[in-house]
Each structure stands twice: as structure tokens, then as C-alpha cells.
């Protein structure tokens, strides 16, 4: 067998296994969208709660971010799927969505909180002197400026989330990584992992591109 025949064989093999691996793409994208859409507003709400005057609310939110940033996401996923789903009857995807939303919500809470607190006190004073109340001040003055400032850390989280979705492999969801692993252990080859890696790279590149555009759009005023 010469080397060109061997090369064609490899290509054929890749062509054969890629559709199966990429059949996990759908669930990854679906989970990703659910988590981004739910956890960013959750983080924003919790951040607003964290800078409020209510000590009880602040205490509860402190506990929330402490627990969910302080324990492994995989452990949380096991807890929800093997523990809570006995009571609430979640399927795997629901269990994964809930865990990821709550976990990422905790990170976003801290990012938004830090962002809000980084806005100059003079902005609050100017708004107050113009007769704006607290919610008008937050909505119109503080949060828009904060969002621009936190784009880089939010973009980091958004990229990490792409890769973190692979943890669902552990609760038997057929995502990219799990499908690749199945083939890898069947055929004793690392080729499926390379294909999976390329797929993750493509996904993260899309996210990087989107955030780059967002940062450009928001940079008009500085």
C-alpha cells in the first residue's frame, strides 16, 4: 500500500465519522443559546440586587455566588441530574440547562456587580441632581456604561461556556465530545478527538467574532 492510498483511506474514515460527531453539535448549540439567554439576565438582576440596600437580599446573593463559583460545575451537574431530577423529573438536557444557567448566572452576577461598582460616583450624583430616581439612574445612566465596560470579561465567560458544554458528556448527553469518545474507543484512534477539537474551535471563533463586533460598536464614545 503506498502513501497516497493511505491518505485517501484516512480521508474516507474522516468523512465517515464526521457526520456522527457533528450530530452532537445541535445539542451543544441549543444548550449554549439557552444558557446565554437565561444566565445573562439572571446575572444582571442578581448584580442589581447585590448593589441594593437590602442586607437580606445581599446575603442571599452572596451565598449563591459563593456556592456556585466555589464548587465544580461537574459536581453541580451530578447533583442536579442524579439528585434533584429524582424529585423534579428533569431529563438530561433540562438538568444540564438548569445547572449551567445557575452556575453561569453566578459568574455574570459578579462581573456585572464589579462593573456597576466601577462607575464613577459623579454619574449617580449628576443623575440625582437632574431629578432622576434610582431606577431611572440605573437603567439610563449606570447600566449602559457598565455593559460596555464588562464586555471583555463577559466575552471570556461566553468562550468558556462553549467548552464547558462538553461536561454534559458525563450525564450521557450525546454532544460533540461524547460522540467523538465513542468512536475513539471503538476504533482505537485519536482522529475523532481532532475532529471534535476543530468543531469547538469553529464555535469559539464565532463567539470571539461576535464579541469583537460588539466591542467595536460600543467603543464609539471613548
Amino acid at each position, binding site marked *: 500500500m503506498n502513501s497516497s492510498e493511505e491518505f485517501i483511506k484516512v480521508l474516507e474514515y474522516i468523512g465517515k465519522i464526521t457526520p456522527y460527531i457533528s450530530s452532537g453539535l445541535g445539542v451543544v448549540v441549543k444548550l449554549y443559546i439557552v444558557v446565554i439567554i437565561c444566565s445573562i439576565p439572571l446575572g444582571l438582576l442578581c448584580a442589581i440586587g447585590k448593589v441594593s440596600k437590602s442586607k437580606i437580599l445581599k446575603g442571599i446573593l452572596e451565598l449563591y455566588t459563593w456556592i456556585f463559583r466555589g464548587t465544580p460545575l461537574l459536581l453541580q451537574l451530578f447533583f442536579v441530574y442524579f439528585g434533584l431530577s429524582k424529585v423534579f423529573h428533569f431529563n438530561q438536557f433540562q438538568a444540564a440547562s438548569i445547572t449551567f444557567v445557575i452556575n453561569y448566572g453566578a459568574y455574570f452576577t459578579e462581573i456585572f456587580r464589579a462593573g456597576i461598582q466601577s462607575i464613577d460616583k459623579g454619574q449617580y450624583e*449628576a443623575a440625582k*441632581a*437632574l431629578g432622576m430616581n434610582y431606577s431611572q439612574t440605573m437603567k439610563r445612566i449606570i447600566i449602559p456604561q457598565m455593559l460596555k465596560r464588562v464586555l471583555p470579561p463577559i466575552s471570556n465567560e461566553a468562550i468558556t461556556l462553549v467548552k464547558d458544554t462538553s461536561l454534559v458528556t458525563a450525564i450521557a448527553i450525546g454532544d460533540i465530545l461524547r460522540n467523538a469518545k465513542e468512536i475513539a474507543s471503538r476504533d482505537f484512534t485519536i482522529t475523532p478527538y481532532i475532529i471534535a477539537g476543530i468543531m469547538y474551535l469553529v464555535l469559539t471563533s464565532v463567539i470571539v467574532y461576535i464579541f469583537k463586533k460588539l466591542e467595536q460598536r460600543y467603543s464609539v464614545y471613548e
Partner: protein
Amino acid sequence: MVKVKNINKHFGKLHVLKGVSLDVDKGEVVTIIGPSGSGKSTLLRSINNLETVQNGIIEIEGNKIADEKNGKRIHISEKEIRENCKKVGMVFQNFNLFPHKTILDNIIEAPIIVNKEARNVVIKRAESLLQKVGLDSKADVYPFQLSGGQKQRVAIARALAMEPDIMLFDEPTSALDPELTGEVLSVIKELAKEDMTMVIVTHEMAFAREVSDRIVFMDEGEIIEDAAPDEFFNNPKHERVKGFLNKML
């Protein structure tokens, strides 16, 4: 117009305002001068509820924003205070323009959001205010594109857009390069000519002398001199004022 009676303010152990009283009549321009740490900014900021006093009475056009009975503070709701402060405009040392909004949007924001005025009406007013402060060509730029003096003139226009009866200026030129103070001071002088009631904290002595009806001197949380400009500069009663003026002039 503004009545401040016997107000006290503590920051922790520091007694910043020690029973200060001050009356400002309609159309009057009062400048507050004094060494730093004397409480002049705190006094000014109390008139706008940016600082809450521990006791004493503050009244704006007959409406109380701080009140007491038998030495005990009477609670006034945030909302009522906000309503009563609506006719007070404020200009800060650091401008505090909204960086994410254009100059025009900075000016029209509060009239639209707070007063619920119609956008086209407010825009017309904003344009004439920009003309008044000499910045009508800058409506669509962002604050970072302006010089300090221009920013402060926008800040004045922004405060005026709420059609205040009283304007407070907290060291409006202290953050500016010397060559830029003139343009801001001339806008304030213009307002004085239009009989705007103003309280100004400043270190610009020549300006204070020119624009003021009264000059108030504060030291260590107390008003120790309150006189017409000529009287104040030529014949100050208090030794502390004489010492200060000798250093400043």
C-alpha cells in the same frame, strides 16, 4: 428662595457643618469662599440633598427638604425631596457628563425622562441652550471629544434644560486649565445678568468680586463672614478672612 437654618452635618467624628444658616433671595448671586475642608462644598451639596444633614431646616421656594421639630429630625420621603429639588440645578467640578450619550442627548435626557416632556420641544430648547453656551456645533459629538471648558459649558446647559430657579456651582473651574476658566465664568456671568439665583463655591476671587451680590466666608464648618463684595474685600471684619485674602490676592 433658599433658606438654610442651623444645619449640622457630621462625617463620622468630623463635624463638617456646625449649625450653618444661610438665606438666598430670588435673583441673588451668593459666592461661598474659604479654605479647603471648611465645609463649603458640603453646604452647597446639602441644598440639593446630595448630602443629608443630621439636623436643621432646608427650604427651597417654601418646600422643605430637611426639617426638624424640637431638635429632632422629621422624615421627608425621597420622592418629596426629589420633587422639591427639581427647581435646583447643579454644576460639578468634574462636569459629570454622561460619557455614553452625545452632547444633545446629555441635555435632553432629564427633561424627557424626569419631566416627561415631548422630545421635539426639549430638542428645540436644548439647541438654543447650546447656542447660548456657544456650542451649537457640538450637538452630535460625545463628551470625550470636548475640552474641559466645553464640557463644563455643556454641563451648565444640561442643568439649565430642566429650567431651574436656582443654580448651584461646585467649584466649576477648579478642574480646568487656567486658559479655559474664562469661557465658563463668562457663561455664569451671563446667567447673573439674567437674574438667575445662584450659589457658587469658587476660588476665583476676581470673579467672585465681579459677579456676587454677597460673599460668604466659611471656616471650619461655620460661616464667619457674610458681606457685599466691596465690603468683603476692602474691609473684612474677621482676622481669619484677612489672612485668607492676603494669601489669595
